[in-house]
């Protein structure tokens, strides 16, 4: 995350002609193509960036200066991912600041979920997935051969698009992480359950039916239960993949309130297709397009004063 300071360049033309047209490998990529502080230059047309992507040229992400100096808990460096022959991530470089909420936005299929699931290595389960580049969690190389994936995942919580409670009691769902860690002390489990449910704003609704089945809860409650399950294990980072996409507005609001309440205490990375949601809950927003990070900056800047015209047209709903 220490890019060479280079002169502001137009992203579309940043890549030297020497760069291969397709699948630029990490080693072949010259330093200048690493993300730099991009300043939108007046001559940049609204399509130059996208044209460059479509032509398969490496592009430079526009990263706002404040995000270059931040204390990043997860660092992603020129990270690439292939699903068999299809390249889903084309050299993403970014960092997720500690204890902040980072939103990932972009049109469907741009690789948001792929990047999110690369952090806890859930993509490992999919046949034919290959990665290149580097990713670290608190300095530990996520893809190092000696990395224990089970331990890695214990350090990360995840909330999925569709709530996925286990078919057991509410209590057992919340303490699942502690159970698989071998925790047996009743008081520890009960305390963890209560504080996680309180944090997920579900305690008042379920405190009298903790022994009842989790499947008896409403959709919104189930999703908050999954949140409680994820945070009960006290993860370093909470990964959320469109957690509200299946919920009604009121249930959505409750989850957004949770994210705001937890902000500052836990790092949250949230994928969302809902721009208002990104604007409401996040400190920083990253805009992805076709497997590239396009622009990354403080949420207010991304929505009100983006560097790139592409970002502006996306956040204002003109494309995507």
């Amino acid at each position: 995350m220490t890019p060479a300071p280079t002169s502001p360049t137009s992203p579309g033309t940043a890549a030297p002609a020497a760069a291969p047209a397709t699948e630029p490998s990490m080693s072949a990529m010259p330093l200048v193509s690493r993300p730099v502080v991009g300043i939108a230059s007046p001559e940049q047309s609204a399509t130059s960036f996208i044209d460059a992507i479509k032509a398969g040229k490496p592009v430079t992400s526009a990263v706002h200066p404040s995000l270059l100096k931040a204390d990043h808990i997860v660092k992603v460096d020129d990270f690439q991912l292939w699903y068999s022959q299809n390249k889903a991530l084309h050299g993403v470089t970014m960092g997720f600041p500690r204890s902040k909420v980072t939103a990932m936005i972009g049109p469907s299929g741009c690789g948001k979920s792929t990047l999110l699931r690369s952090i806890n290595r859930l993509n490992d389960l999919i046949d034919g997935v290959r990665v290149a580049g580097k990713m670290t969690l608190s300095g530990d190389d996520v893809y190092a051969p000696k990395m224990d994936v089970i331990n890695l995942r214990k350090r990360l919580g995840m909330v999925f698009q569709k709530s996925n409670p286990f078919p057991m009691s509410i209590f057992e769902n919340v303490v699942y992480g502690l159970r698989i860690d071998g925790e047996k002390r009743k008081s520890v489990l009960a305390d963890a359950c209560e504080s996680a449910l309180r944090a997920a704003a579900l305690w008042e609704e379920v405190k009298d039916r903790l022994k009842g089945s989790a499947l008896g809860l409403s959709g919104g409650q189930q999703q908050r239960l999954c949140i409680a399950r994820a945070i009960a294990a006290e993860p370093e980072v909470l990964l959320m993949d469109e957690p509200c996409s299946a919920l009604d507005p009121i249930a959505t609001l409750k989850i957004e309130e949770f994210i705001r309440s937890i902000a500052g205490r836990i790092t949250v990375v949230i994928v969302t297709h809902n721009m208002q949601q990104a604007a409401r809950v996040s400190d920083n927003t990253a805009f992805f397009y076709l497997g590239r990070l396009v622009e990354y900056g403080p949420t207010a800047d991304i929505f009100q004063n983006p560097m790139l015209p592409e970002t502006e047209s996306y956040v204002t709903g003109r494309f995507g």
Partner: protein
Amino acid sequence: MSGLSMETATAATLAGSPRPARHRPPASGISRFVDSGLRWACRGAAATILLMLILPVSVLLIQAWPAVHRFGAGFLVSSEWRANELEIPVRDAAGKIIQKDGENVTTIEPPSFGALPVLYGTAVSAMLALIFAVPFSFAAALFIVRVAPKIKIAGPLSFLIEFLAAIPSLAYGLWGLFVLAPFLATTVEPALISTLGKVPFLSWMFFQDVEIAGATVRRQLPAAGRDMLCGGLVLGIMILPIITAVSRDVLKNVPRAQIEGSLAMGATWWQSCVEMLRYGRAGLFGAVMLGLARAAGETMAVTMVIGNNNQIVLSPLAPAQTMASLLANEFAEATDGLHGSALLYVALILLVMSLLFNIVARYLVVGKNSRTSGAH
């Protein structure tokens, strides 16, 4: 109707010049006639299938009726199975046999039938079969769903499992008779006797109390290989494919989100497998019920290896009898009306039992699968 013409229609409507609906000719008389004929043919075919179920059941009921009428529900708890009349000498108050004209005075006990030993034999052999088959089947199903696709052998493996299910039971029976039973008799059972045989509270497994001339004698079981254990093992092998195939389908239907949910929490491979089993538990129970129905109804192989002793002996090392093997053994020689009727009573119980197992299994497997597959 193609999207294009619909668009044109909409466009035309919007333009304010509605297109008149095309006049379509009514269906011809011939096609209506053929139609009703085919409809009736379908009804007839469906009725035939129903008839094919009802007919045998009613024949069975009618034939079993004398025994049902005679023994009633007591049939289920009586353990006497005697096809011949019994002459019993009549004794006086002092216990001396009464004689008249130099001959013993006797009363005639009519033949008596009870299904308890075969119910017991069926239940225990099926349970043994499940104990052997279920862990193997679930493990194999997990392997097919979670591991085999990664190494590209899921297809061949599934084919193999289905192929195993199609092997005639005679083949399993022959293998049981000529390979498994001798192996049990010469190797496994002696080993069991020499190890567990010394444990005091396990003596029921190796000894049997026999009544000889009014005295109870404790006798070591012969451990001849052809016994309940062998029957249970052969049955277990026979129901392995069906349980594996059904559990495989159940586990395949577990939503990805459930597996990923547990893995994302830091579950190990096995812990996430446990979550899969938990999620599919109703369907898996159905798979077990299907296996149970198979095991209870299996005839040929069991008859060959279970030893065919119509008595309740607790030890799995003793020969036993199941409902199906009793039928196979005695049906040909059941000349006496009541004997045959009693056998059909057993057959009726077996039929009702398998029907129940199958209904429960279908409800659990099909019901659960359609519910879960509807969810994603």
